[in-house]
């Protein structure tokens, strides 16, 4: 419950996963393709993660591995992890992976996350502390939220150091004071 108010955590749990119902359910309108409000056993429905998780705890559904952890993505990450566009696949790749791994009982997801982060971390590290790097570049657009946080932490530290080294006025006059003086003149 520590992350109850964490907006990133909420968005992560909004991620859609596909599930297969193990029990029939009636009176639920969660499957837009079905004509009645009845869901048969074995039907495949796409649900947000938070709902799928609760249903899975009650053994009503079984959760499939989401597309961002499929074989194709894995191969791409193995080939050249630094240039894979993880953001378009899932902006909260790592957080979502941590949540989904115990549910789909796929042990390889943990390894995938660690190896992907390990190799992408180096890429972020080499670029993060050079302030000359423009924010609008291509590199920026393929990072996941967690990597962007890391990148921004390094950038802001570097920028504040550079600002300090350049010097400038130490004590800034509050804008309201400046205005007051002008009006009297």
């Amino acid at each position, binding site marked *: 419950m520590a992350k109850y108010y964490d907006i990133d955590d909420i968005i992560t749990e909004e991620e859609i996963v596909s599930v297969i119902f193990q029990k029939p359910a009636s009176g639920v309108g969660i499957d837009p393709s079905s004509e009645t409000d009845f869901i048969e056993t074995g039907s495949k429905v796409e649900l947000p993660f938070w709902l799928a998780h609760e249903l899975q705890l009650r053994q009503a559904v079984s959760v499939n591995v989401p597309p961002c952890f499929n074989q194709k993505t894995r191969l791409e990450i193995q080939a050249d992890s630094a240039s894979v566009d993880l953001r378009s696949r899932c902006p909260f790749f*790592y957080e979502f992976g941590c949540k989904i791994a115990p549910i789909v009982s796929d042990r390889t997801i943990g390894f995938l996350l660690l190896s992907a982060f390990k190799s992408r971390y180096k890429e972020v590290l080499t670029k993060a502390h050079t302030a000359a790097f423009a924010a609008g570049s291509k590199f920026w657009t393929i990072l996941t939220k967690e990597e962007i946080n890391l990148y921004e932490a390094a950038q802001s530290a570097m920028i*504040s150091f550079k600002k300090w080294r350049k010097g400038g006025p130490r004590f800034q006059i509050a804008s309201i004071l400046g205005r007051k003086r002008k009006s009297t003149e």
Partner: protein
Amino acid sequence: MAGQSDAELSLFSAEELEFIAEDEIVDIVPNLKMGPLNFISGDFGPFIPQIVAQVPLWLAVALKKRGKCSICPPQWMSVDKLTQVLEAERNSQEMSEQLPFHYVEISRLLFDHAHDDIPDAYMVSIKMVLPCRIMPWGFFKCFALLSSVQVRSLIEDIRDVRFHKVETDLEAFNGRTIAVKIKNLSAMEVNIVRPFIGRALQAFYKHDSPELIPDPERVPDRRPQVVQNAPRRQLRR
């Protein structure tokens, strides 16, 4: 300021580090006569004209601003010493231990407030280099020494080299190594990389936790546990 809005990573800003660095002791040559000053941190003085006294940097800067003293730059802030340090830094992956912990802050403070004192200190080294004039490039070498610009750029170079070393050291992080030992890191260098390292280590810790990468034996008894929990909770209600 880096991370000040983030309560989890409580950090120093560069200005705060500068404040801490102002407690370092420097030598000054006062040109006023004044009795000793008694502060909580100790007694400084008495101040007698042309007699070297040791004071904290903040006091030295305050006196300097009023034109009451000249600051003797510390020994390491000489072209000779700095060239030596730069050479040493370039030659090995180890961080050199010849610079003080607050060298970035101290050098900046001295450049800002006492930069007219810095070239004076190099008259000595200029005299030493003068024989080089016999050689064709010697003249240019002397010429460059005449300003504090060289000290400044030397310190910049040293800082860049050292920072690059820190970055290559940090590349060694992966899930298994949870710590990297870097000796003789200075205050400002630590401060710059701190938010990055903090977050990176948190992420590595999270992704390397045994829950995500489990021992093969432990997995089978974990999953049913979760399933059993659900009905039990319902009974309690």
